């Protein structure tokens, strides 16, 4: 190769490597928060938690079913308000391939049981004692609702109170065909 051409190739390669490196750094820095938190479209992180009856619920066991995950605490008034709505919609959809799991954040069994008894909740309520599932789903604010498709993908992440109609629509969206 002629000397001038070789020099041009070298310069192009060096500049390209540098520009790509810098572009990646800037991109990674800008999307750092996004890669750390759960996004719609991600695989739903698998977990296993125990409900008040002592039954273990493993997310991956529900593959083929739509899963409605609700993170809540007894101290959170909007959580409390949407629970009865969830309960009545659960009655409608439970035989249509929908699983509903309410994940309590690290409260005592007694408090959770009292709450469940008061509202007569029919869906399983599990307690995330070590807050590991909350971390895995990057839940910061309660109530948080995450929809998992029958394929195990996150299809929606919502924080804040839900209306009964909205819950119905959400369940409809993850119903297996």
């Amino acid at each position, binding site marked *: 190769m002629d000397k001038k051409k070789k020099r041009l190739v070298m*310069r192009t390669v060096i500049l390209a490597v540098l520009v790509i490196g*810098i572009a990646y750094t800037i991109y*990674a820095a800008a999307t750092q928060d996004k890669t750390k938190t759960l996004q719609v479209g991600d695989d739903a992180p698998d977990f296993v938690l125990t409900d008040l009856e002592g039954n273990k619920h493993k997310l991956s066991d529900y593959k083929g079913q739509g899963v409605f995950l609700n993170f809540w605490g007894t101290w959170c008034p909007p959580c409390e308000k949407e629970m009865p709505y969830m309960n009545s919609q659960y009655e409608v959809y439970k035989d249509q391939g929908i699983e509903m799991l309410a994940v309590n954040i*690290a409260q*005592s069994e007694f408090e959770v049981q009292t709450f469940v008894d008061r509202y007569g909740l029919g869906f399983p309520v599990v307690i995330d004692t070590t807050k590991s599932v909350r*971390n895995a789903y990057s839940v910061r604010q309660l109530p948080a609702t995450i929809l998992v498709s029958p394929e195990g993908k996150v299809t929606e992440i919502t924080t804040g109170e839900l209306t009964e109609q909205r819950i119905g629509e959400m369940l409809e969206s993850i119903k297996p065909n």
Partner: protein
Amino acid sequence: MEKETVICTCGHENPFGTKLCEKCGNPLTEEEKNTKVVDMRYDGKAIRSKTYNKSFVDKVWNFFSSVKVGITLIVILLLAASIGTFLPQEMYVNAGSPIADKGAYYESVYGFFGKIYYMLGLTDLYSSWWFQILVGMLGISIIVASIDRGIPLHKSLKNQRVKRHASFMKRQRVIASGEVADGETTLNDIEKQLKAQKFKVRRDGTALLAEKNRISRYGPYINHVGLIIFLVGVSLRVVPGFYVDESMMVKEGEMVEVPGMPGYYFKNEKFILETHDNNGQLSGEQEKQGVNVVAKNFQTNAKLYKQPEGAVSGDTSELELVKEAEIRVNHPLQYDGYSIYQMDYRLGDLSGMTFKLMNKATEESYGELTIDLTNPSKMYDLGNGSSVEILTYLPDYDGFKDGQPVTKSPNPNNPAFIFMMKTPETPEGETSFVEIKNTIEPLGENQNMMKFVAPQTSNASGLTINKNSTLPILSVGGIIFLLGVAIGSYWNHRRIWVQITDNQLLLATHTNKNWHGMKRELDKLSEHVALPAYEDQLALTDSEDEEEGDQ
């Protein structure tokens, strides 16, 4: 044919832009021919970028190769970085501030200026794209400029000829010329003496080149390599897995998953705060600072557990204890590249309450019960047909809402209970609402009451989780940087050329810095070999002399 080469009188073809012939050192440009002392910065080599400026890539290359551009970038970066120090950056303003919105926070604390500052994005300046682009451009500038200057310099130093053109030698700064008695002997003597002065000496007929500390010329380039490694290390921080900085508050007895450390669980066994015993007397320093108690030890007894490989979140059935540690100041729990430090603590959180079930009139006790506030039981059997049932537990009681007592947090800051008390005398049971310092009997006058006996308290440790895998890279970069500085500063590249033709001696010297040192070498040489006196063609004053130097 383009103007590609410059042919020297010695017949050597030099690249266009060369100031001094690569082979013999003869000045090639009019400018160099007319100066008294030649420019030896890059040994007269053509700086590559200054000679080709054709394609787009060449133009970009030449832009970054420019020292002026590099310095401009440094100045802009310094100015920008200093603007970022006007107000605290976002990551340092209190996350627990009552004002959740950062913009409102800056406005309320710093007024209009704070608002503008926030709106311009200066509160997160160092992670802004434009700041990072500037740093990146400086990185490119350092690399390109070093390649452009370092490689030609290296080639020229590697291919030095012993015999140089007389006009090259005469244009060096410190030279000597004159007649010597016996050319051959003198040259041999010079060689012997310069070798004793630790010069590397080469001979080519009647010419001699002595050289030492050539590595000094590479100092700035070594220094730049260190700088680039350092920059790479800093930018690796944003690559997932290289850098973790999280925090958590863990109560005694509590086990939580460690944020930023998936699969690891942390149990706080005990938090200990020890203070120095004053022995009834305050030390002078304590009095001066107005403190009564001085802490001796902050300690968290901790256990770190790990899930087996492949276990999913929340599966704590097969945790393996991997580390047990007493975390103290400067003694973090360290495991697998992570360090867990103490940052904060909370003393005396309410963790349990002991009550006595007793008859209000006779104060006769039916027994005591202790309620674990983090995990209360439903039923407490006191024996002899007496029992207490908790109907409702509110860890952080906050009044009634829509006829229901509510709690505002899951933490037992202000516990309240609704008890169902049963005794042989009241088998139907009596309901009592008990909160701290207050008891309500919602369903009529009771015979019995729950009397508060004693609280149990526990402490909590605030911890941060740190991992920084970029530190080794940063230290390697830093060490190379300093090495480059030292090599460039404390070593001097010294060269002496000697030619003797017909007993006529011509001696020239060059050094990249410290001409005093160069002259001392010549003085020492003259003590052993009879030489004509040397002459400094620039004859600067002493102070100017010290500042003189080049790459």
